[in-house]
């Protein structure tokens, strides 16, 4: 498939992609994925899962060891310059020059990205407005907060109006407000410009909120793929959590709820995974009808962490800690 036949002009197609480092394990171990034009694809996984290596290969910074990858219809091995012309990239570390201002960065980036000279200033102003950095535009980046650096990084990735955008953990380390700002911006880009977005993240919420489809990667392999709803549905049913008024009520509530599904371990409340076809309203009616006294009832939908747990046997958080300690162990050796 090539750009010339127009099949995947804004899409990404990866087949059997492998990337090995000289003295390490396979960072990416034969992954297949396809991102449709205009789609936001969330690539979810813990630290060290292979997310950033995949981004480096797809953005032409690293050659693959095996397999094929087409970005915008172009082959990452043969057509590096063509791919670089149509993608925008914000890598994991917002690589900015602390001595330059936002405006200096935009000027440099737009020149190197071949934005026509007459449009550079207008484009810079437009992007500064868009990411809310107008007031800070002439201040050195050294004084920026983490959120401001990320927003500038995003503006730089957009300077040449790319058709495909790669965002490698764009909100890691940001406060909730800055994170929401980035999410809004990414959603807006897709809505207004139809940009295809390949977004890596270790945050379940981010993948859930932003992504049309999610690929879950662990130890270099994709372990699950689908829309967040599909993935959660694969895990199955929601759970109901009843909060007792007193500790003494707990056994009675547990016995009552057991008729609606299998009990779940919980110290805070009494929880059951609902049987197929049952919902919160069924439980509320039964609780009322039987005069069971509870302080509150909550319905918990399955999360992507449940999906990760089901596919890998670990929670996302646990996998991240494991990866961190393995990394430390390797560094000690």
């Amino acid at each position, binding site marked *: 498939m090539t750009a010339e036949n127009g099949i995947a002009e804004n899409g990404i197609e990866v087949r059997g992609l492998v990337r090995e480092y000289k003295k390490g394990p396979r960072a990416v171990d034969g992954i297949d994925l396809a991102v449709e034009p205009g789609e936001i694809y969330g690539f979810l996984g813990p630290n060290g899962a292979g997310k950033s290596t995949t981004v480096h290969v797809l953005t032409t910074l690293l*050659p693959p060891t095996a397999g094929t990858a087409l970005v915008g219809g172009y082959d990452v*091995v043969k057509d590096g310059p063509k791919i670089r012309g149509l*993608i925008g990239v914000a890598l994991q570390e917002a*690589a900015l*020059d602390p*001595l330059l201002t936002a405006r200096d960065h935009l000027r440099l*980036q737009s020149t*190197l990205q071949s934005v026509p000279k007459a449009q550079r200033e207008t484009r810079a102003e437009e992007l500064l407005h868009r990411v809310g950095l107008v007031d800070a535009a002439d201040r050195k980046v050294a004084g920026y907060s983490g959120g401001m650096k990320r927003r500038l990084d995003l503006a730089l990735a957009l300077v040449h109006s790319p058709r495909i955008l790669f965002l490698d953990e764009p909100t890691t380390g940001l406060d909730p407000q800055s994170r929401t700002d980035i999410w809004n911006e990414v959603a807006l880009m897709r809505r207004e410009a139809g940009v295809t977005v390949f977004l890596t993240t270790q945050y379940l919420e981010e993948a859930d909120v932003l992504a049309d489809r999610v690929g879950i990667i662990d130890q270099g392999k994709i372990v699950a793929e689908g829309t967040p709803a599909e993935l959660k549905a694969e895990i199955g049913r929601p759970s109901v959590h009843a909060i007792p008024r007193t500790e003494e009520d707990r056994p009675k509530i547990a016995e009552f709820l057991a008729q609606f599904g299998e009990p779940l371990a919980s110290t805070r409340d009494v929880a059951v995974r609902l049987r197929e076809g049952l919902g919160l309203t069924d439980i509320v009616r039964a609780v009322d009808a039987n005069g069971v006294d509870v302080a509150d009832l909550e319905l918990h939908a399955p999360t992507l962490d449940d999906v990760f747990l089901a596919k890998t046997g670990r929670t996302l958080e646990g996998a991240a800690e494991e990866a961190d300690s393995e990394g430390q162990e390797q560094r000690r050796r």
Partner: protein
Amino acid sequence: MSTTRTQVGAIARRAIVRTSRQPASIIPPLVFPVALMLVNAGGLRSSTELPGFPTDSFLAFALAVPFIQGALFSTMNAGTDIARDIQTGFVNRLSLTALRDWALLTGQLAGIVVLGVVQVLFYIVVGLTAGVRFESGPAGIAVLIVYGAVVALAFGALGAWLAYRTGSGETIQALFPVLFVFLFISSMNAPRNLIGVDWFRTAATLNPVSYMIEAVRSLIITGWDWQALALGFGFVILIGLASLFLASRALRTRMTRT
């Protein structure tokens, strides 16, 4: 696609802007060599009374040293800046644009050359202000400026090679004293024929830095010494070509984009 000239200009402009915003990168290469020269000129003034000393002004004799010493400072600064770009991922950012490899190197070196010329102009002004007479006249001063640019280019390429090869600012800083050794075992403080210690005279004779200094010195105190100029330019050009070759190779390895 932006032209190579535009790319080189953008990278050079960045190098100049960021250096101009770091007083620590500008002031030491200007002040320290001049301060060392003034100290030496004060302490070694009596050397001019030695039979065969080529001038009666030690300041005129010593003025050549800042040209090379300043270039060494600039080399370190340039190398450290490039290494920091590698460490922070800025080179990756540049790799993801349409920037050509050699346009990046040329742009960085162009920035170093501009700053090198500024340094040379400063040393010339210091010399003229201190009453040094340039025997080669205005044309000689023009040649000095060109020579300063070539020295900055050669040493800048050396710094760039070290930076692309190691990717570590600390390693480059650690090499700084090594380069300074070359300066101190040269003819910086005495003409080679007047160095009394045999091993030192031999080392100074084998050291290319001696010839680089003597080319500058000839324009200041002798006039037009074609042999000194040929040796000075020759060594600088040789070092420059070797460094450029190594730097461009290291850059290709560093920018592993497909």
